[in-house]
């Protein structure tokens, strides 16, 4: 049994401007100890997906639509009473966010904040919780942890604050850590430290990781599998080796080509024409078709299912059924 099974997840927001279908039929699984990255640009639904798993969507205006399913070790989370859901959060699934400063309480010592998280979920007296908090700080690579535990958040650097958040998240030994853009606010040399730490802890503690990021490079370095989202849907998924070496969906291909490369400079970068459509009015058929260089009539008429490419690699694109069209388009516009 997979650790996490998300099936037909639909999270809508009811606003004055209409219903925004932020996540619109997302299904995937995550096995124990596995690291999966969800990538996509602003508004693709990647963060709403992760918040929906933990039921952290404010309703109203948000709504996890009837028929959605999120199972953790077979147990349906969307049907749990709130009290039991609170136990799942932190105990079974923990989450860290982009900006650790807003998640930490500025008036409490970081050691107390970790100790509090431990005492909420475990039977431990103050002394035990404090010494476990110091242990957690040591685990996440904070030097002189018994002294740093007495620091307040503002006394720490951005990288150290993210380490503290990881310490809080891992203090109850969760099966799954959801990390939403955990390094986006950090400098690149500090990002490298935090990504190394996450990979090392995942292996040491055997926990699964769901990494939400806009940065394809971060996924390549950390994850086993990658899920690419566009307009509330999964458009491509598979093992990172396979997806990065042979991206199949025109959106994934466009994203990868748009990134400037250190080793292969180009005069111009490839771009994806147009803009991400509004979640209140997704295009009919394949949602990427208005921006797709390969699109033909079928693409506007109906959305394809995820098509198997090879060993777990799947792409939601009619080109998988009509490979001749890919070659024809390639020969029309060489180099694009």
């Amino acid at each position, binding site marked *: 049994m997979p650790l996490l099974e998300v099936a037909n997840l639909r999270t809508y927001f009811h606003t004055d401007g209409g219903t925004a279908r932020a996540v619109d039929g997302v299904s995937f699984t995550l096995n124990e100890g596995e690291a999966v990255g969800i990538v996509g640009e602003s508004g693709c639904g990647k963060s709403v997906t992760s918040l929906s798993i933990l039921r952290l969507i404010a309703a109203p205006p948000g709504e996890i639509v009837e028929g959605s399913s999120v199972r953790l070790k077979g147990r349906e989370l969307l049907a749990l009473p709130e009290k039991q859901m609170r136990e799942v959060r932190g105990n079974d699934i923990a989450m860290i966010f982009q900006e650790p400063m807003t998640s930490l309480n500025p008036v409490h010592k970081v050691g107390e904040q970790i100790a509090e998280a431990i005492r909420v979920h475990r039977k431990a007296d103050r002394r035990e919780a404090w010494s476990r908090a110091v242990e957690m700080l040591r685990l996440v690579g904070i030097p002189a942890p018994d002294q740093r535990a007495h620091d307040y958040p503002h006394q720490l650097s951005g990288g150290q604050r993210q380490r503290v958040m990881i310490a809080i998240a891992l203090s109850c030994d969760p099966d799954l850590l959801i990390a939403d853009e955990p390094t986006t606010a950090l400098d690149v040399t500090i990002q490298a430290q935090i990504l190394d730490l996450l990979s090392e802890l995942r292996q040491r503690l055997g926990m699964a990781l769901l990494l939400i990021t806009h940065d394809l490079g*971060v996924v390549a370095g950390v994850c086993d599998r990658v899920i690419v989202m566009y307009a509330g849907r999964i458009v491509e998924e598979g093992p990172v080796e396979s997806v990065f070496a042979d991206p199949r969906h025109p959106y994934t291909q466009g994203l990868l080509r748009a*990134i*400037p490369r250190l*080793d292969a400079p180009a005069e111009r970068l490839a771009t994806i024409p147009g*803009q991400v459509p509004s979640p209140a009015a997704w295009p009919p058929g394949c949602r990427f078709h208005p921006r797709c260089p390969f699109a033909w009539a079928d693409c506007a008429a109906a959305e394809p299912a995820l098509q198997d490419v090879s060993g777990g690699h799947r792409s939601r694109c009619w080109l998988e059924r009509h490979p001749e069209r890919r070659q024809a388009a390639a020969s029309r516009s060489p180099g694009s």
Partner: protein
Amino acid sequence: MTSIASAIELPPAKGDSDEGGRRFEEVPPPADALVTVRGLTRDFPVQRGLFGRRSGQVRAVDGVTFWVGRGQTLGLVGESGSGKTTTGRALLRLIEPTAGEIRFDGQDVSAMDREALRRFRRKAQIVFQDPYGSLDPRMTVADTISEVLHVHRLTRGPATRERVLDLLRLVGLSAEHAARYPHEFSGGQRQRIGIARALAVEPQFIVCDEPVSALDVSVQAQVLNLLRDLQRQLGLSYLFIAHDLSVIRHVSDWIAVMYLGRIVELAAAAELAREPRHPYTRALLSAVPEPRLEEGSAPARIVLRGDIPDPASPPAGCPFHPRCQHPLRDADCARIRPPLAEKAKDHFAACIKTPSWPASGAPAA
């Protein structure tokens, strides 16, 4: 020029320290350089406590020297606290430099009075990271751009509208966008408006301060292509400031790497990316997460220990020495302020443990 002199007055070299090689400060700028900056320094007071008592100062930019060639792009890359943004603003005198010399097209910018500065700002413009924060939400796009044209007395009457539409077309927007307000645009479109506003005065030089950092990758590519097309079309020179080394590598002819207020490496973009000479640049390049998995294509990742030091109390000697993983790092690194010296032809790095060019001992031509 005092800050340059102090960089040259070093304790005598000894052991395996290598302080030879041509100093970057000694290299005459090319005759066609549009902007030359020498020894640019900017201090900020540090205020502490309830009454904002001045308790010291931060040297945000510490004796920085560089030039920007006509029609070329110098990329300025660095992490938080490197001083890259302060450098760009001090160069335009949007904040006043504490010391140093700035020349633009032969004129001494440091000595300009108000009126001369106003004329200077017709030739030198800036594009900011957050176009939303720099656009007035109550003004339409046409009003925003017209205002610039009026302030600089460039157009009057119906000619203004024509010019606004020309500028919008130039940045890939259309006439129908003119009457809209900033909130009606996406991030990428707002950045195009910011660029149109900068272009309104027909500048020769633009400081691009993290212009694509807030944009999604597909939109980032559109804006980078636009900046490149405009450079070719209008002969613009850019100082391009960013924290993203891949972006800097893509846009730049030359790259200067900053760390704690100083330039630690400066070279042609391809050369710097291929063979970085400073241990910090090497770590920075290796830390860039690239969406590739081919074995052997990327350098082994160097994960630096420790945090970037507080710019208010930078380490003595080489500012990078506490995090440096150079095998020859020793006590000299904590003592000697490394000059930006030539380590390969036209390739400068501030590291006394990196051999000079031509090889130490041989007299420099």
